[in-house]
């Protein structure tokens, strides 16, 4: 038991340890930001190793906390993503006077996600969700002097509170109709009667809000734009990923009796999400906003993949998230470096970027191609496998629809590439001195983008550990 307590909870323990060490540092004498950042990065790296170190599966606190290879892997992904973000936002963190607090918030939010992913119980799920949201809302406000930042934080906290209200109503009705909170027992009591479907829909809406699927997505763009880049990338990649993992877990494990309805719910959401995301992304000039909408569109594709409700479905989801971490973080990495060092955040500022910063340009370009799904980048495989998983149901109308939307998405990704390489600009962004740490992070991302796709072992491994309906 004790042994399990340490083995199965190792990642959580690590995080908690980091949190407390940071607290003591805070209470102790001033430390230079660099040291703190490096320490945290190191710790996260160790934690990453800890994830891989030993295989563990099972459940604790009778089912409140469950874990298995898949979940550990998912946690590792999130961990990796946080590591990358903290490396990329080096330039920004170095000059902020709240590094420790920032890490406290981010890491506790990560901890919340860990608990959410391995939750075996609606209560734990709810706690994890809130724990991953509330600190982020605070973190979104970290550019204390910026008006946009506080506006973003306000929007985030209010809408998330609202959504959690809806979610709770759903949970309460689930509880009322099944008399239970733990997944393992829940499934048996689910018999698609209207109230349960309603409760389920409320629940799904809560999820849809977190993964920002249309029409629950409206907070996304504003928050992304206002929040500090680090927080934005955290929101766009990590919290989304965590919620998606949980969603798949719930749909495939718990709500199997409602599969017929949630398939169509997912399809509907997917269709609208892709379309609206694309249509809005076309017009954006602010880079973070642009990435926000593009990520919304991506979520649509992910939903298609999930709707396949097969082992391939969840595998392709996790695979895509992995790729998405690399590609999206590569893009955000460049953006964060640029905005930290030159304060420019608009696509139009990137005109003629290649002349001054070829390395960053290539990183950004490859990232965008991967997001667009162009071979040989991994994004191609990710998107293709999602669509394949979706097509397995034989519902080709949505596939065709998505395929045509891919063309629109190509347009706006290529638009950025065009700005970088082809458009002329009298005062382009000057040559930037990228911190080594961030550079390393970007290289990791690029390497990931290239390798993850071509090396099929990655996918095959994910497939082997992932679950089907």
């Amino acid at each position: 038991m004790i042994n399990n307590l340490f083995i199965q909870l190792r990642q959580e323990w690590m995080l908690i340890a980091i949190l407390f060490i940071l607290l003591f540092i805070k209470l102790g004498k001033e430390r230079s930001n660099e040291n703190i950042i490096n320490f945290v990065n190191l710790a996260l790296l160790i934690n990453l190793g800890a994830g891989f170190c030993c295989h563990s599966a099972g459940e604790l606190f009778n089912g409140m906390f469950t874990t298995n290879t898949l979940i550990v892997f998912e946690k590792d992904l999130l961990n990796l993503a946080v590591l990358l973000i903290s490396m990329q936002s080096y330039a920004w963190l170095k000059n902020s006077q709240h590094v420790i607090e920032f890490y406290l918030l981010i890491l506790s939010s990560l901890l919340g996600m860990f608990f959410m992913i391995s939750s075996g119980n609606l209560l734990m799920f709810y706690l994890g969700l809130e724990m991953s949201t509330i600190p982020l809302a605070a973190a979104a406000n970290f550019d204390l002097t910026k008006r946009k930042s506080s506006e973003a934080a306000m929007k985030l906290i209010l809408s998330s509170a609202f959504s959690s209200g809806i979610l709770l109503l759903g949970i309460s009705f689930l509880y009322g109709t099944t008399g239970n909170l733990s997944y393992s027992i829940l499934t048996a009591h689910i018999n698609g009667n209207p109230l349960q479907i309603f409760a389920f829909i409320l629940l799904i809406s809560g999820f849809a809000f977190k993964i920002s699927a249309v029409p629950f997505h409206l907070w996304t763009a504003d928050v992304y734009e206002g929040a500090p880049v680090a927080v934005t990338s955290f929101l766009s990649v990590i919290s989304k990923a965590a919620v998606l993992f949980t969603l798949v877990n719930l749909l495939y494990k718990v709500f199997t009796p409602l599969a017929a309805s949630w398939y169509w719910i997912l399809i509907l959401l997917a269709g609208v999400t892709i379309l609206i995301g694309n249509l809005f992304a076309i017009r954006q000039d602010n880079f973070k906003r642009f990435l926000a909408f593009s990520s919304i569109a991506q979520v649509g594709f992910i939903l298609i993949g999930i709707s396949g409700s097969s082992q391939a479905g969840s595998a392709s989801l996790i695979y895509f998230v992995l790729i998405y971490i690399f590609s999206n973080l590569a893009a955000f990495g460049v953006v964060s470096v640029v905005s930290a060092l030159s304060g420019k955040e608009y696509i139009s500022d990137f005109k003629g970027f290649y002349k001054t910063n070829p390395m960053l340009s290539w990183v950004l370009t490859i990232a965008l191609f991967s997001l667009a799904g162009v071979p040989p980048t991994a994004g191609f495989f990710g998107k293709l496998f999602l669509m394949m998983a979706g097509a397995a149901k034989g519902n080709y109308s949505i596939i065709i629809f998505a395929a045509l939307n891919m063309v629109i998405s190509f347009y706006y990704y290529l638009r950025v590439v065009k700005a970088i390489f082809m458009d002329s600009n009298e005062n382009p962004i000057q040559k930037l001195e990228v911190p080594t740490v961030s550079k390393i992070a970007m290289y990791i991302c690029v390497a990931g983008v290239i390798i993850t796709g071509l090396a099929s072992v990655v996918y095959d491994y994910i497939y082997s550990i992932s679950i089907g309906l």
Partner: protein
Amino acid sequence: MNLTILIVVPLITAVLILLAKGLQQIRIIGLTGAIAQLGLAGWLLKSFLAERAAGNNTTHLFESNQTWFKALNIQYHIGIDGIALAMILLTSIIVVAGILVSWTMEQLSKEYFFLLVLLSMGAYGFFISLDLFTLFFFLEVAVIPKFLLIGIWGSGDKTKSAMKLALMLMAGSALVMVGLFGVYYNTHTFDIVQITQQGIPVGVQKFFFPFAFLGFGVFAALFPFHTWVPDGHASAPTAASMFLAGISMKLGGYGCLRIATLMPDAAHAYSWIIIVLATIAIIYGAFATMMQTDLKYINAYSSISHCGFVILGIGMLNKTALNGAVIQMVSHGLMTALFFAAIGMIYSRTHTRMVAQLGGLLKAMPFISTVFVIAGLCSLGLPGLSGFVAEMTVFMGSWQNPDGAYRLATVLSGASIVVTAVYILRATGRTIMGPISNEHAQLSDASWNEKLAAVLLIVGILVIGLAPFLINHLITPSTDAIMLQMGKAIAVK
């Protein structure tokens, strides 16, 4: 031998180019790689023929089949038949020529050559794939380099053309993707060989054939999805135009061919639509060409017309016509590349492509003019040059079909050879012949690299034109096999 080397060599070349310093190194590396590839292709041809001579009559030679994504049953399955080999030869020739003509590319030369090589890699991979997934993969690999090549180094309204090209091609590949999914979920494999063996239910074919075929049709400039061709070719830098017309439009034709063989019933059911579209493309392209005033536009539109013959040949679904389609692909590849090379040479000297502003170039630059005339004659189907062989084979093939409507289509397409003569002679008469303007009179003739490129292509054209039996021997067994297999598939139903 393992065909993967055909991808590896360009890959290495590309990497080396990235590492190279200075234009001189870069272009030498590029050229070396291209020539090595050409040598490889030649050697491949030799061993291929040797195998055939040794009585190895399997459809695809040099097959190798590794599992790529085990979970999804995706193979990395490569192998070539005569058709693919012809395409590979074509590609390797054009790559060498393309690198030669862009010898003096100063601006961002590293990126330029890198992208050229990358594009060629996509083409090679495409032609050797025997698995629809890898086919699709390489098809898309070849798209983005085009976008960058046109957008960065192009001329005129380059970004718009680049964007249009990229988007239309991507739309095409999106359609292809849908078709491939349909195939995959009804056969549970992407492997072309397996699929041909087990066949696809007719209903499925009928539903998914249009997607796949039209998807590839976009690449092959099938009417009405051809509008990327004129702008794209016109804006692209010389080598890119050569690659575009010479290689990437062939990806489309080749893909259409494969799709038609994979789904024979659907192909038969829809053949009349294909033929109507092809005929429209031929006539329409020819007349549109007649009205152009920009040399590159002339060639681009004529490409639409010529690629119509490819589609026509495929749509006729008989052996001779298929032969014709394949020969036309090769011939058109060489011929258009040559044409674009000549235009590029003229443009780089006179800085105009407007027919009205040129004239009498034969006086100032006899070599380039001769090249131009040869390309023109090839395009209007002069015996002894490849165009004649290709078009005549297509005609003979399509005439085999006794149906009156098909006959009409053949006659109409035949009429295009007159229109072709008109526009080719107009272009030649006004640029090469006639009085020369004073500022053009002093211009220099082709440099050694340009001469080499032109000669290379001309040799290719002549070989096909003078000794068509060679390429015929090369591809006929494959087309025979295709017809046999299709016949079987039909018979089964």
